[in-house]
């Protein structure tokens, strides 16, 4: 394992210390329990938005704390969901009296820990609502399983809900917006290589030079299927087919697209993927109205990418375009 770290046990804290030092104008970092909070929190009268999950997905979530996006982020250990005391402390720190939304990615660990935190906060008299993001089309959904994973759409939901809260929507309305984003967002991911969890010290899975994993999540889990490596054009077609037919996205739809790198994918390749995706959307009459191309929700040092499509209407687009000022996403400011 080759990483720029000191001791594995201290990685999360030392990295948070770097975030605190680099972005002292935007965020504050609290330790024990760990959470990253907007510099001006709590914002009186504004619905506060919190997300969290295992570390190793940077810039998500800590990089999205700031005006127009998250009020706080709770980073767990690498790939391990945070514990309820983190969410409880963060919720108390950002509650501005208008209630708090927890944006939770659909993983058993995240769900259970956020649930416990919500119980603790409600007991303390804070109004808390949770929306679960489950946008991963690689996973077959079913009432009798853990359902779909929460992946790329989380980033878009955090931005859009942040804007809704910032314009003064109440908690019920922000919850509605979040559900709407989740209902209209779909993601699929693939990996060329495994990542290496620092504490484990070696790659999570073995994969040969001529294979890829299709339908991965963001924790180095093996995907739905392993297959022979193909040209980017075919890979993107395969992923887009699953995504497009799932919602389904139709001719005339307007979409926000995110072509996301898993951590070790050169930007050059992500733009090439975007190019393939753009051609497919054009052919289907789907208009990409906004886009992100880069590393937004990563999986440590994994090579690969994910594609997210979010169908938007006027409302979501306006919220998307609203000013945002966080370490990793900034415009209009």
């Amino acid at each position, binding site marked *: 394992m080759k990483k720029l770290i000191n001791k594995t046990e201290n990685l999360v804290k030392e990295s948070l210390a770097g975030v605190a030092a680099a972005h002292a104008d935007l965020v504050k970092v609290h330790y024990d*329990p760990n959470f990253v909070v907007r510099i001006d929190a709590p914002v009186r009268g504004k619905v506060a938005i919190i997300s969290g999950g*295992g570390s190793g997905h940077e810039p998500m979530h800590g990089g999205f704390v700031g005006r127009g996006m998250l009020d706080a982020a709770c980073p*767990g*250990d*690498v*790939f*391990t*969901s*945070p*514990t*309820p*005391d983190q969410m409880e402390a963060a919720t108390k720190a950002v509650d501005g009296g208008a209630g708090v939304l927890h944006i939770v990615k659909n*993983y*058993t*660990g995240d769900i*259970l*820990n956020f*649930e*416990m935190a919500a119980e603790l906060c409600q007991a303390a008299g804070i109004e808390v609502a949770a929306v679960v993001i489950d946008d*991963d089309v*690689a*996973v*077959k959904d079913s009432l*009798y*399983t*853990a359902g779909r*994973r929460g992946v790329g759409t989380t980033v878009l939901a955090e931005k859009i809900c942040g804007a809704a809260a910032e314009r003064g929507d109440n908690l019920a309305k922000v919850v509605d917006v979040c559900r709407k984003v989740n209902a209209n967002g779909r993601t699929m991911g693939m990996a060329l290589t495994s990542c290496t*969890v620092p*504490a*484990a010290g070696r790659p*999570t*899975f073995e994969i040969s030079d001529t294979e890829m994993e299709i339908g991965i*999540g963001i*924790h*180095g*889990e*093996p995907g*739905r*299927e392993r297959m022979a490596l193909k040209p980017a054009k075919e890979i993107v077609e395969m992923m887009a087919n699953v995504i497009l037919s799932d919602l389904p996205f139709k001719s005339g739809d307007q979409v926000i697209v995110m072509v996301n790198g898993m951590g070790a994918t050169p930007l050059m390749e992500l733009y090439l993927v975007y190019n393939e995706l753009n051609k497919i959307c054009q052919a289907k009459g789907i208009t990409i109205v906004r886009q992100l191309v880069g590393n937004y929700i990563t999986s440590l040092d994994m090579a690969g990418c994910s594609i997210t499509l979010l169908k938007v209407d006027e409302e979501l687009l306006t919220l998307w375009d609203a000013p945002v000022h966080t370490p990793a996403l900034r415009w209009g400011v």
Partner: protein
Amino acid sequence: MVNQESLVAWIEALQEVYAENKEYLTQLDSAIGDADHGINLDRGFTAVRRKLSETKCEDMSAVLKTASMTLISSVGGASGPLYGTFFLRASAVCANKTELAEADIVAMVEAGLEGILHRGKARPNDKTMVDALTPAVNAMKQALAAGSGVKEILEKGVEAAEQGMTDTIPMLAKKGRASYLGERSIGHQDPGATSSYLMLKTAANLWN
């Protein structure tokens, strides 16, 4: 008979067992999960042991409650709240007791399992820790009804848990991270079922 001292000894032994099995459990989790189950439990029980050494617990219930709270705030992941709930429910069973008789021990494990079922909503055959704990509780109840002592009850429980653990191998996962793998989850032993088996086995080795 199991008293406060035996409870603490069990938890201390669990810390050692999970430290020894850290790699093994993580390895199991890397096949169908995210390669951290052993790391999670090692971190959690190390914290519990530290906490217990710093805390003056007034009774058995307090020991288990401290363990529960520490697991909840140090493990994270799915197993943190699940095992945290296990110990919380177990602590309720011990309330106002200074010693645990055969029936209490069985009641404690059963309450713990119910807590896990309540929190995690898994059902038997979903390929989770539930698949080790459910047969274990059933076997322990039978042994209790047959009039067995602590040692034998626990041994029956361990035997059933071990069987339940290996029975997870051919299962298709329906809960937890492994469920995302669909068919590919078949053929691997569930890490949580394995750590549950180890939990009972450690008790059986100590208590009698």
